[in-house]
């Protein structure tokens, strides 16, 4: 199968025509996104090129330590990014960091332990990147929801605390809804995969000339791994983050301005 394809920078540049089209639509319909579209195109070019060279280096060095270093950077960066979307949650960074770390370690550990992939950079780097990226989105959505839920339901939470409930008991319905909203997007898209959209890995493998059955199997493995990592990261992040809304005496903290 391993037919690989080679693309020139000229071909990449040609695809910018579609970015120009997107910017033109934004300008024409005044959605005020032209700037963001250009920034997104430039950032994606720089970031992917850099990571491309980094991955090339890591593959050539073929050592697990460089892989771990790269995954650590991804986890830290992911936690920072997710934190910016969870502004109403006090001290969101650590719950996110711990959630992403546990999600990445468990997911990668399991796929290696179950003999699905070899513990080599060629597998761990791309799979780790996907796992961390999806876990980041899920836990950001979950904490964003948690922040909204808590700030809208302060009276209900305090009424439950006033009965002598623990912080955990008072927050439980809101933590559950936050966890659900963090996980449900991927669950729904997994349900419709192949019908409404073709996921990226499968598309990539098909373009690279792989057998469709191989492309499908790899895609399934990744989808299942992602479901696990998304659930773990959202569970850990919400399970740790709700505590930051409360004092040790089970008082709901005043919202941070």
């Amino acid at each position, binding site marked *: 199968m391993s037919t690989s394809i080679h693309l020139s920078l000229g071909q990449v540049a040609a695809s910018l025509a579609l970015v120009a089209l997107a910017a033109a639509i934004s300008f024409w319909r005044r959605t005020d996104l032209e700037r963001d579209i250009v920034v997104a195109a430039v950032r994606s070019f720089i970031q992917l090129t850099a990571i491309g060279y980094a991955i090339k280096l890591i593959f050539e060095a073929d050592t697990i330590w460089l892989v771990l270093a790269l995954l650590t950077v991804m986890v830290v960066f992911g936690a920072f990014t997710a934190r910016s979307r969870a502004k109403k949650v006090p001290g969101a960074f650590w719950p996110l960091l711990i959630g992403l770390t546990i999600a990445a370690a468990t997911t990668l550990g399991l796929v290696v332990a179950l003999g699905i992939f070899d513990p080599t950079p060629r597998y761990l780097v791309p799979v780790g990147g996907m796992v961390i990226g999806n876990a980041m989105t899920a836990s950001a959505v979950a904490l964003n929801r948690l922040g909204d839920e808590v700030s809208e339901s302060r*009276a*209900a939470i*305090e009424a439950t605390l*006033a*009965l*002598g*409930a*623990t912080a955990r008991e008072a927050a439980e319905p809101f933590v559950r809804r936050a966890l659900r909203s963090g996980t449900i997007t991927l669950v729904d898209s997994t349900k419709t995969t192949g019908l409404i959209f073709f996921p990226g890995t499968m598309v990539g493998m098909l373009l690279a000339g792989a057998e469709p059955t191989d492309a499908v199997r790899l895609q399934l493995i990744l989808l299942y791994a992602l479901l696990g990592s998304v659930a773990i990261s959202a569970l850990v992040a919400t399970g740790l983050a709700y505590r930051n809304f409360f004092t040790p*005496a089970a*008082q709901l903290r005043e919202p941070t301005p």
Partner: protein
Amino acid sequence: MLFELRDVSLTRGERRVLDSIDAEIEPGATAIVGPSGAGKSTLLRLLNRLSDPESGTIAYRGRPLDSYDPLALRREVSLVPQLPALLPGTVESNLAYAAKLAGKQLDTAECLRRAGLAAEFAERDVSRLSVGEQQRAMLARALAQQPGVLLLDEPTSALDSEARDAIEATLRRLRAELDLSLVVVTHDPEQARRLADRAVRLRDGRAVASGTPAEALA
């Protein structure tokens, strides 16, 4: 002495909500009276440690408030908030939850009766209660914990005068039937006179008078 407040202050943002409050609350029924924004509800929330003052001390039955386990304290000193906030479900499920937290045997019909609700309200979904019924269900829920002190935040502010009189009658009957102290926050001096043995008058976060309702509200 039930509660003893010494030099209690609290700031929210730029605003000094409570300013060096000294007050004594004896067993029985005490009204905390003042116009809106005087700091009444804030003061009430301090008494079961839903929040803490920035400075000053509060004692409950002679012991510093923060020496009690906050969860146990809140089951003993039960706050009925101003805005009805029942948990989704039936009236009975709310009572059962409260009784379970307090580790108390639940007599639903008795709690409902004491709060002035007929026994058939037990099965009623809380989303189908009127505001007055919600207020009574909150009261029944607090009673399910068999507290020693009830903190009531404007218990009749959302009600018409008929429903208000009924709630006041319920509160007077509760005091006669149970060994229960009441701390009632109200903006209405008349209500304080009808319900309370003692009153503390607040204005702009300061305790400006206290004593019998006649003395404090003169």
